[in-house]
């Protein structure tokens, strides 16, 4: 694929579009600005010091689309037939999603106009809210789709939702992972749920050489000797299972056991 904005010597050039067929061109771009929940609430209520934030950002985005050729050096100046800016206030992710769509009948694509509109609308949102929130972040500015022109349609594949972290273990349901963990006798120790987050660790292998006594109390002591963090395991509320069966401090452990520590359960 050749970059059309470079000539054969690699120098910048504006593409000559005089001989290109006029077609209907459309492009949709999106982005978002992430902010503090309090800022988002004020924005929705219209109680920010600079007034109606979304209306101002919408006008800014439309103006910017029309002036893209002044900002991006090799862009043509286009007579856009339509620029639309949509805002979606998202309390769940504490952000405003911005979508811009541009259209014209012409010889060049309008994706730069749509991307510029999104960028400037986001910048305007930042400017309108910055008095109350300095932590705002603009991200995920991207082309979602474009139609028309020689290269045809483009549609961004939806990014798959990140799978929720369900378990620490990689084993399939109904299986206890056993065997072949290390050369000398050892146990696999797993940390689940909030305990995993507090410790910052999924699992670790403890060899029998490190154990003073081959029971859960001995395992807790060995872990605490490795790292201060594991004092957490001595919390009375921390539960323990050996090979997926509940166990107490006196329960004995044998080679290749799977030992899990976890907080009180909260299902149902």
């Amino acid at each position, binding site marked *: 694929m050749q970059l059309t904005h470079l000539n054969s010597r690699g120098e910048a050039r504006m593409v000559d579009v005089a001989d290109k067929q006029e077609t209907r061109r459309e492009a949709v771009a999106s982005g978002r600005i992430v902010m503090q*929940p309090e800022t988002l609430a004020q924005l929705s209520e219209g109680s920010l010091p600079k007034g109606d934030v979304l209306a101002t950002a919408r006008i800014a985005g439309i103006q910017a689309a029309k002036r893209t050729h002044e900002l991006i050096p090799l862009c043509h100046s286009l007579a856009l037939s339509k620029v639309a800016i949509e805002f979606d206030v998202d*309390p*769940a992710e*504490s952000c405003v999603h911005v979508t811009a769509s541009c259209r014209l009948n012409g010889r060049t694509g309008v994706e730069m106009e749509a991307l510029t509109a999104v960028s400037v609308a986001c910048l305007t949102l930042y400017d309108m809210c910055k008095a109350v929130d300095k932590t705002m972040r603009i991200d995920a500015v991207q082309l979602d789709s474009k139609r028309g022109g020689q290269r045809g349609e483009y549609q961004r594949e939806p990014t798959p939702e990140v*799978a*929720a*972290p*369900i*378990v620490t*273990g990689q*084993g*399939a*349901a*109904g*299986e*206890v992972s056993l065997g072949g963990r290390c050369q000398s006798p050892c146990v696999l120790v797993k940390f*689940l*749920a*909030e305990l995993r*987050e507090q410790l910052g660790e999924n699992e670790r292998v403890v060899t029998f050489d490190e154990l003073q006594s081959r029971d859960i109390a001995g395992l807790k002591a060995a872990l605490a000797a490795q790292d201060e963090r594991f004092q957490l395991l001595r919390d009375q*509320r921390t539960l323990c*299972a050996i090979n*997926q*069966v509940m166990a107490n401090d006196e329960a004995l452990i044998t080679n290749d056991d799977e030992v*899990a520590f*976890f*907080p*009180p*359960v*909260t*299902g*149902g």
Partner: protein
Amino acid sequence: MDITIRVQAEPFDMAFGYEASIAGRTDIGGVVSFTGLVRDFNETPDVTGLTLEHYPGMTEATLQRIAEQAGQRWALNAVTIIHRVGHMRPGDAIVRVLVASAHRREAFEACDFIMDWLKTQAPFWKKEHGRHGDYWVKERRSDIEDAARW
């Protein structure tokens, strides 16, 4: 007694387990079911969703054991327990328990018992998502007291 246990990330059908519990039998006098849903208020007033973590293997084994315990305490024909894991939104069903028995009292009590033990023994952990961040749900004293009744 028939026991059916399911732990899955996908939403489940409300009809699940009912037909299977009574199919081909005429000795069942009643089916009691309980459905647990995600509330939009819990430890904070604005829960936007929750993520349920579990311990595969131990989860299924624990639910099986609870169902067997119910079968030993009451005369039951069928027990079905289905529990979701992963991400859920307010209004989604988390858990459903169906108990089929010759008599309603036994079905009601067994269903109550299964939920009490499930909440205090099965290795599930809820992380709630709110407008002001995420937090792990704490165990409740009332749940422990409820489970101690049996």
